């Protein structure tokens, strides 16, 4: 079960300066099976090489949403289909 979820493709989305630094606004890919939590995912991103290494160099400055809901680093990715990365929000 864990393997089949891990092999499923997810959509990754990037916003604000994270989008600019990553050089991409959206991509679809299958996450490695070892990536179980939001924290795992941030570490994996930082290890993907240029330009992700620089975009994700400070994971504490990055917020993550799983299927349109804010998620902490300890949150399991589970069956999320859309995962978004962005800086702290500054609207209003």
């Amino acid at each position: 079960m864990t393997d089949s979820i891990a092999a499923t493709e997810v959509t990754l989305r990037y916003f604000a300066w994270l989008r600019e630094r990553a050089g991409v606004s959206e991509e679809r890919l299958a996450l490695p099976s070892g990536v179980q939590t939001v924290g795992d995912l941030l570490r994996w991103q930082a290890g993907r090489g240029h330009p992700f290494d620089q975009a994700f160099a400070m994971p504490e400055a990055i917020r993550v949403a799983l299927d349109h809901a804010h998620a902490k680093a300890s949150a399991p990715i589970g069956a999320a289909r859309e995962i978004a990365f962005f800086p702290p929000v500054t609207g209003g």
Partner: protein
Amino acid sequence: MAVRVSAEDFDASAEMEKLCAGDTRIGGIAMFVGKVRGDVQGEALTSMTLEHYPGMTEAELARIEAEARERFRLSGSLIVHRVGELTPGDNIVLVAACAPHRQDAFRGAEFLMDYLKTRAPFWKKETLANGTSRWVDARESDEAAASAWQERST
């Protein structure tokens, strides 16, 4: 209860009318309109570009509204947030809460703003008169304002 994301400007009076229409239990409506300021720490600002996360924005604003309704006795509430390029003096956001009593209306509107500022997925990029652009940093004071609601009962 309504949330809207739009490039278009809004008319606070017309929105208020719609929000209150026909409900004579309403004793008051509190509103807040956020505007683009013309300076950033002493530097002139040329424009402000607002990016958001379609889909999550609406979901998060709806969650914020639902939380406000749980905390306060509100007859209605509204959040309208603009996106795209804006210039100094332009409206950015409208938050409104109507209620039988004014304290609920005031508390509701302020709660909506504080939570919107820290949870709704909007990002501002400033372009200054000197030609440089930069993403606005989140303010600790906004985080503190939102956190303070956790310790309050009203």
